[in-house]
């Protein structure tokens, strides 16, 4: 093939673009109806509620609704608790992921199943379980209360505990996956250079899997931010102390639907921001 001149090159590009468009159209035409129709219904099912939220939003009174003290209180509490829960998840979740990915021990599969159970467990059940463990009369909570005077249920710390319980498995699974994909021979190379296993983890593995940890942390944070069931069960619903955004939305819906919509919009915006932050990782799959 000879090198085309500018004009013929441009023409070729146009032709090629046209071909591509035609090919795309042909591909769409080739999709069988029994697949296309349910797929479109699925799209509508997922997208229409979000559109409805935007359509019904009380745009005019929105600034007023969102600047109320209650909203700010709930939003601040949500952000603080979700961030704290993510921090807790990172501190214990990353080492846990490393253990699951790098150390061979009997019962590893069982342990992995156990720690990821909260992923599929109904959050309310998680809340009840937390009460049984960390409540005033719980098997651990009793000791915490009598020895250290620490009470977790129905406190802001309780919100963090409930959110971390639900969100940490997301982080563990994400980081473990990244660790498994990372070449363990870098750790071997570090060992031959005199690094202990911990030094190798800290100075080599951790920087290498940082993107995976970040993605896992964002995922856990988003999950913690939306946490409802475990939080309301374990920490209750006290404005300013344990009432996070999702609880506020639920409560507002019963008394002031417009406020509920406004609060929902804030959470939607946060979710979109999270997705935008992760787009490099997940939305390029196609």
């Amino acid at each position, binding site marked *: 093939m000879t090198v085309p001149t500018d004009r013929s090159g441009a023409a070729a590009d146009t032709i090629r673009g046209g071909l591509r468009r035609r090919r795309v159209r042909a591909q769409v035409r080739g999709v069988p109806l029994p697949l296309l129709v349910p797929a479109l219904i699925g799209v509508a099912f997922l997208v229409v509620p979000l559109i409805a939220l935007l359509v019904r939003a009380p745009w005019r009174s929105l600034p007023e609704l969102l600047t109320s003290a209650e909203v700010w209180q709930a939003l601040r509490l949500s952000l603080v608790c979700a961030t704290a829960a993510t921090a807790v998840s990172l501190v214990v979740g990353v080492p846990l992921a490393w253990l699951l990915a790098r150390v061979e021990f009997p019962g590893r599969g069982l342990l992995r199943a156990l720690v990821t159970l909260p992923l599929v467990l109904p959050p309310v059940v998680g809340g009840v379980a937390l009460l049984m463990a960390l409540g005033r009369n719980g098997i651990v909570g009793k000791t915490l209360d009598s020895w250290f005077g620490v009470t977790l249920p129905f406190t802001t710390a309780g919100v963090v505990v409930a959110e971390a319980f639900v969100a940490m498995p997301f982080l563990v699974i994400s980081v473990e996956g990244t660790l498994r994909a990372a070449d363990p021979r870098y750790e071997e190379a570090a060992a*031959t250079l005199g*690094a202990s296993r911990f030094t190798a983890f800290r100075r080599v593995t951790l920087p290498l899997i940082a993107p995976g940890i970040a993605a896992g942390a964002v995922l856990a944070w988003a999950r913690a931010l939306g946490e409802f069931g475990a939080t309301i069960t374990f920490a209750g619903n006290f404005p300013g102390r344990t009432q996070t955004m999702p609880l506020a939305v639920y409560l507002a819906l019963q008394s002031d639907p417009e406020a509920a919509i406004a609060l929902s919009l804030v959470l939607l915006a946060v979710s979109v921001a999270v997705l935008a932050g992760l787009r490099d990782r997940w939305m390029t799959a196609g």
Partner: protein
Amino acid sequence: MTEPEPKKSTAAQRTVHDVHDARDVRDVRDRHDVNDVRPADSLADELDVRRAGATADGLDAHLVVQRGAFRLDVTLNVAPGEVVALLGPNGAGKTTALRALAGLTPLTDGRLRLDGSALDGTPPESRPVGVVFQDYLLFPHLTALDNVAFGPRCQGATKAEARAQAAEWLDRLGLAAHAGAKPRRLSGGQAQRVALARALATRPRLLLLDEPLAALDARTRLEVRAQLRRHLAEFEAVAVLVTHDPLDAMVLADRLVVVEHGRVVQEGAPSDIARHPRTDYIAQLVGLNLYRGEADGHTVRLDAGPPITTTEVLSGPVFVAFPPSAVTLYRDRPTGASARNLWHCEVAGLETHGDQIRADLTGELPLAADLTTVAAAELDLHPGARVWAAVKATQTHAYPV
């Protein structure tokens, strides 16, 4: 005859050219004349002297690693300053041996002593061992300087000290200009030298190199091989390298240890191994036709095949070797042949081999023969053609098993 059997013509051609280069690098080695029957005793003496030194200082290892059905059982004695190459086909257990030396794979049995102290139970981070990995494994998030400083840092140097040492090593390897570069910005040859600097910066008593040149393209390889040879010559402690490339092994190492199926099948100076191969694998590597049989005077009766007449007078089990260039091919049975070995063969394949053609023959005796393009055309050689192959007795070389 140092060329390996040209199964893949491109690889073979590369090796042919490389051999000439190797000769320049190490002209001391005369491994081209089969008839040079230098007594093996002097070589053995040389090795014995080295081994005697190795018992006190250096590496004294008997590596046994059992993994499923595969068993590695290799004994290695290397004196300080000596460079030994573990040479063998893929899957022979060379890398397992290297990993066992580094402590990355536990020994099932055997012993491992370095400079008189046992290393068997020592974890890899506490062994005075430096490793240059096949794909270097430079830490991608650290600069070349910090990669090299990593070892000194782990050994307790302060950040400033470690960096100063690293800068010195990079300078010594001619990489001062690339100290701030991340590994992905380095060329293959530069990355290889950074990996070497990183391994040397821990001041190891045992330097291990896993296929040090395998990741490089042919051009870089020549240059890096010569440089690596120089750096290894300067290294005062034990160096063990693993390779499947005979040329790398011969250029870089003082002594070869050939490993097949987890066992040492032959070891010695490169020239000795090139002259006296003991397995088909080595014979192919060094480009010799190799047969095993029973000698009776000038005649060697092969285990399978016709007798071969040799100049040596031997008895008992022997190897007979001759280079492909010693074979002369005839279309018709030659008459009046003197003390000649003559076999009726069939051409199985033809390959270009530098400016020569190598014919792969089957029939009475399977062998490889080199001839010029002109000769091949005159003989009208093609796969399936019947030819007579002759080898003068003086061109063969027999030696006891």
